[in-house]
């Protein structure tokens, strides 16, 4: 009990340090001390005398960005863990399975049809798109072979991604003005610019909720180690757990996509790294992946802002630059494990 308390504290401290670093590093760098003072001022009315411009940058721009990055990273990594466990497929990831593409289509549809422009309605559209995409991809994988076959489901995911990306492009060309189109295209590649406090209040609770629901079912996720029949014979109501947790993954993905666009490979890279370090038990794998995802996306965001002076690279480009080689490594590693 005591050891797990220490681990929790270490994890929270790591997250805090990552957020402070994410806020401090940027084109105009801000002393970490100043960041902490701003936090103290805002949270406890500590009353440090600070430059109001610095304070504004920290509180309204950088902090919201870092917090949303952390929530997205944690959420996407959790989704990766769920999908890999339930589908018994090490390459499962919301991006590769087309769930993110479906969510994008749903969100774009809502944005262009103008069914309420609020973030909640965007998320609802994204959720509908995510679930549709997942169901389609699984059906396609089933029809074309076994849904558990590693290759089959990834191929189905590629087909799904292409279809939904094409739909999104079609929708944009048909109904968006050129200015809207540019905005949507930039958002699609994964963009943390322009997130403010309302995004934080949506992203953070959803990421925490996703993690808590999964932790509650950690033993069920463990029980899937030897497949669905084995999980059932260990007393897991398989269908019920699959629907709940995959629904949860679709919801988290949808909310994150509706806020920052589709950011790939977080759900692939982070759970694999966590498994290598900590083994397969979900009681540790889930929180470690969430923490790793949060830190990873904060770091990716810092890189995206600082790599080219005066330019912001879409954060999805950075995660793909790291993620695609890892994907290749996993493919090769699986072959040699056979």
């Amino acid at each position, binding site marked *: *009990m005591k050891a797990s308390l220490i681990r929790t504290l270490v994890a929270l401290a790591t997250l805090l340090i990552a957020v402070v670093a994410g806020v401090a590093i940027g084109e105009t760098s801000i002393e970490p001390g100043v960041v902490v003072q701003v936090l103290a001022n805002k949270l406890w009315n500590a009353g440090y005398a600070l430059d109001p411009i610095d304070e504004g940058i920290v509180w309204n721009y950088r902090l919201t960005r870092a917090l949303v990055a952390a929530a997205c990273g944690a959420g996407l990594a959790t989704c990766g863990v769920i999908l890999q466990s339930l589908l*018994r497929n*090490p390459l499962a990831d919301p991006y590769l399975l087309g769930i993110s593409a479906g969510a994008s289509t749903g969100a774009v549809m809502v944005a262009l049809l103008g069914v309420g422009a609020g973030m909640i309605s965007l998320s609802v559209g994204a959720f509908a798109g995510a679930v549709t995409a997942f169901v389609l991809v699984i059906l396609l994988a089933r029809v074309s072979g076994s849904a558990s076959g590693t290759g089959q489901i990834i191929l189905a995911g590629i087909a799904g991604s292409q279809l939904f990306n094409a739909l999104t492009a079609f929708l944009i060309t048909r109904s968006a003005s050129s200015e809207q189109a540019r905005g949507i295209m930039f958002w699609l590649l994964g963009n943390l610019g322009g997130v403010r406090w309302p995004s934080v209040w949506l992203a953070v609770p959803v990421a925490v909720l996703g993690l808590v629901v999964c*932790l*509650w*079912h*950690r*033993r*069920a996720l*463990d*029980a899937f*180690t*030897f*497949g669905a*029949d*084995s999980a*059932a*014979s*260990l*007393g*897991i*109501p*398989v269908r019920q757990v699959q629907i709940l947790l995959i629904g949860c993954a679709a919801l988290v993905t949808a909310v994150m996509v509706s806020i920052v666009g589709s950011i790939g490979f977080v759900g692939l890279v982070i759970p694999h790294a966590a*498994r290598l370090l900590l*083994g*397969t*038990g979900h009681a540790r794998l889930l929180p470690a992946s969430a923490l790793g995802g949060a830190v990873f996306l904060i770091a990716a965001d810092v890189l995206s802002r600082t790599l080219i002076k005066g330019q912001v690279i879409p954060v999805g480009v950075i995660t793909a630059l790291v993620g695609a080689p890892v994907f290749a490594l996993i493919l090769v590693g*699986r072959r040699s*494990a056979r």
Partner: protein
Amino acid sequence: MNSVLSCSDLSFKVRGAELLNGVSLEVQRGETLGIVGPNGSGKSTLLKLLAGLREPSAGEVLLDGQRLGKMARRSIAQKLAVVEQQADTDDGIRVFDAVALGRTPWLSALQPWSAADDAIVEQALTDVDAMHLRTRLWRSLSGGERQRVHIARALAQRPQILLLDEPANHLDIQHQLTILNVVQALPVTTLIALHDLNQALKCDRLAVLERGRLVALGAPLEVLTPQRLQDTFGVRAHYLTDPFDGAQILRFHS
């Protein structure tokens, strides 16, 4: 009646193909009931239905007098454990953790792993003579070792009934005998699908399946008559007596 598990008129169809047809049997407490039959006769299907892993198209299964379809998966798993024919994983899981999965039906989300669970897992590992493997990685194990770990996981469920689907399949002769001896020594009611008829002779009773139907049920030597072997398995056979211990063994001719 002292039956812990029974089924009546059990049938199972997949896309019109009848895999099991009107099977009724009762498993007595403490016995080892063997299920034999040619390939595709429905042995695995019968075990899956008895374990509640598939819904029967007709008929019902009773576990301790309760209808299986009405029971929660968790309470089924507290009474009945299954060793599948081929359950594998690519995960880098260690043997101890693989066996610890057997405690799943007894633990809840808020209940932490306890010293009692540790003791049960270690006992299960000892029962199958696999204590020395406890820190090994699953993928480093041989086929026979994996099968023993699967049985240990089933034992860690502390079940009253154990269902095994050809547990000695694909193993070399030494490991086949080890697995079967382990199973026979277990203090639980056991239902075991077997391929090797000479090994099946050691069961308390045998059920013979032929194209989805139960065609014989009873003591091994009464059930596996030369006539039955000719009709069901399509082989001529007669019994020899082992001069060492007087046991009956089957010799086959094509």
